[in-house]
């Protein structure tokens, strides 16, 4: 005979999680879904519109522009910050008192709040009073990030590199420190060149941390908001208007809640999809190379 009492008490044990997840994720998300399929004027006046907002937003040329800019931006960020981060991590001292000096210097940009980073660069890059802006102009290169779209782009990119490369460096550095000395000694005995040591020892051992670095940098850069908002305000024109800024303008500025909700869902799905693709690709890369 089974003497265990049959009742529903176990539900109380999962209740805290259910409540927390519901209020932190499910309810807000469903609110967005709610807005995306209805036209809501006030709590009593609302009309079901089906996929109308989605169709409208998918045909919006402002979104197309921002989406293309967003992809170009995130790709550039990854292409610059990942190799640069690995490079800096490789040149850092492995032991000794300079280690802590390097680590503190690297951690500094990470400690600065996003909008302050924007403000710093907004002043630093000004052609009239900013150190960088004046220096570049003095070298004979015309530079004005408020007027020239290319200059604005370069400034936003350089700012992001300044702000976030440290994260990649710290991750890679931790990964490199975890490689036992015996690997380097064996490589010396096997007569491996510096490049071979990097290619066959360091890079494979860094695969795990690089995956984290790429995912974090992709997601973060894809959602960038505060820094370009403070620096350029999305301009000149819409040259540096990325997805989150367009979304904010739409939802808060123009109060187009329906299209903004549809936009949010699409945005969310893109990030989810790409993170999944990156994750799968990187996991398979390591395995595939072994065959």
């Amino acid at each position, binding site marked *: 005979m089974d003497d265990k009492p049959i009742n529903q008490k176990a539900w109380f044990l999962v209740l805290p999680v259910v409540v927390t997840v519901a209020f932190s994720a499910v309810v807000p998300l469903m609110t967005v879904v709610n807005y995306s399929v209805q036209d809501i004027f006030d709590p009593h006046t609302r009309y079901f519109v089906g996929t109308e907002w989605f169709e409208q937003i998918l045909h919006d040329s402002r979104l197309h522009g921002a989406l293309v800019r967003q992809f170009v931006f995130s790709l550039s960020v990854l292409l610059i910050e990942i190799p640069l981060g690995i490079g800096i991590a490789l040149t850092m001292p492995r032991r000794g008192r300079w280690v802590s000096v390097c680590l503190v210097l690297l951690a500094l940009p990470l400690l600065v709040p996003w909008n302050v980073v924007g403000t710093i660069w907004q002043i630093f890059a000004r052609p009239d009073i900013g150190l960088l802006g004046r220096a570049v102009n003095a070298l004979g290169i015309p530079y004005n990030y408020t007027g020239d779209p290319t200059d604005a782009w370069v400034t936003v990119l350089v700012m992001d590199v300044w702000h976030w490369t440290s994260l990649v460096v710290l991750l890679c550095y931790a990964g490199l420190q975890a490689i036992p000395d015996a690997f380097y*000694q064996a490589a010396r005995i096997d007569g491996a060149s510096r490049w071979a040591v990097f290619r066959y020892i360091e890079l494979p051992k860094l695969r795990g941390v690089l995956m984290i670095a790429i995912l974090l940098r992709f997601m973060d850069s894809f959602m960038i908001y505060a820094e370009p908002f403070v620096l350029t305000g999305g301009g000149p024109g819409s040259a540096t208007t990325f997805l989150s800024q367009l979304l904010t303008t739409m939802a808060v500025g123009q109060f187009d809640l329906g299209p903004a909700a549809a936009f949010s869902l699409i945005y969310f799905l893109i990030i989810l999809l790409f993170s999944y693709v990156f994750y799968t690709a990187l996991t398979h890369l390591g395995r595939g190379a072994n065959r």
Partner: protein
Amino acid sequence: MARIEFQELAHAYVANPRRDSDYAVQRMNLVWEDGGAYALLGPSGCGKTTLLNIISGLLTPSQGRVLFDERDVTALPPQQRNIAQVFQFPVIYDTMSVYENLAFPLRNRGLPEAKVKARVHEVAEMLELTGALHRPGRNLSADGKQLISMGRGLVREDVAAILFDEPLTVIDPHLKWRLRRKLKEVHARLRLTMVYVTHDQTEALTFADKVVVMHEGRVLQVGTPQELFENPAHTFVGYFIGSPGMNLLPVTLEGNAAVAGRARIPLGAVATPPAGARLELGIRPEFLRLSREPTEGAVAVSVRDAEDLGGARLVRVALGEHLLQVKLPEDAEVPAERGWLAFPAQWIRLYADGYRIA
């Protein structure tokens, strides 16, 4: 293959060594004969790994010279020394197959691919890795990985020596015998100079023709397992080799007898120790005789306890204030409380300040 020689070699990790204790390896002259299977035995931190890294070139000694077959290689980097080294933790190039792992040292030296292939297959054959050649290296078990580490050394022609730095530490006990047998097989076949670092005396004594015992940066004795057992050159060797180690008894000399407290132990010959030296009498537990009745030259002892080791009995007896261990056959009679302990003169060794004088 090579004969390796240390001339006036010493190494310190600190920049300006002044005292003896600054040196990880004390000044020494030592020869590793061509084709010998050596075990480098000593407790952790005695300088074994330092010595090994000096042979392989990972470390440049702060003093002295290293010769391979009379050629001075002191300043040469590891890749120019034709040395193979197997580390405590298996080193495998993760992204490479077993074949590529074995081919790596040859490809780094720019050998033609046909030659690489021939060498890799030859070595894989010898190590019984042929079936695994195209598997990813990292999927192999720890002992398989250690074989590959060794193979990467063997694959080069004219390997001068293979160095092992405690290679069995991370290997499962039931696989250790397999790898050790393989090592001996390779040695028998290629007659390479092998140096095997370990702190495990069983491993050292089963692997090596000659054991080099190190302690605090000094080589105390180089000898066959039998020599180390019967004639330890230093009290540390006596204590470190054997299970349990040698009994050591502080004594003074009176004519041809050693005196410890009230006990007089007759010696075979008269020894002349250096003046003022601290004298110790050493004898293996296996060679002591314990009986119930007094015999010629025996001294009275009190029996403390007896331990059954399965194949033998270990009896602890007190001679004055000193405890001695006696290893008796399983069926031997153990006297209760009091007994007589005889020291066969041919097995008594005398040590002055740790070093053997008789």
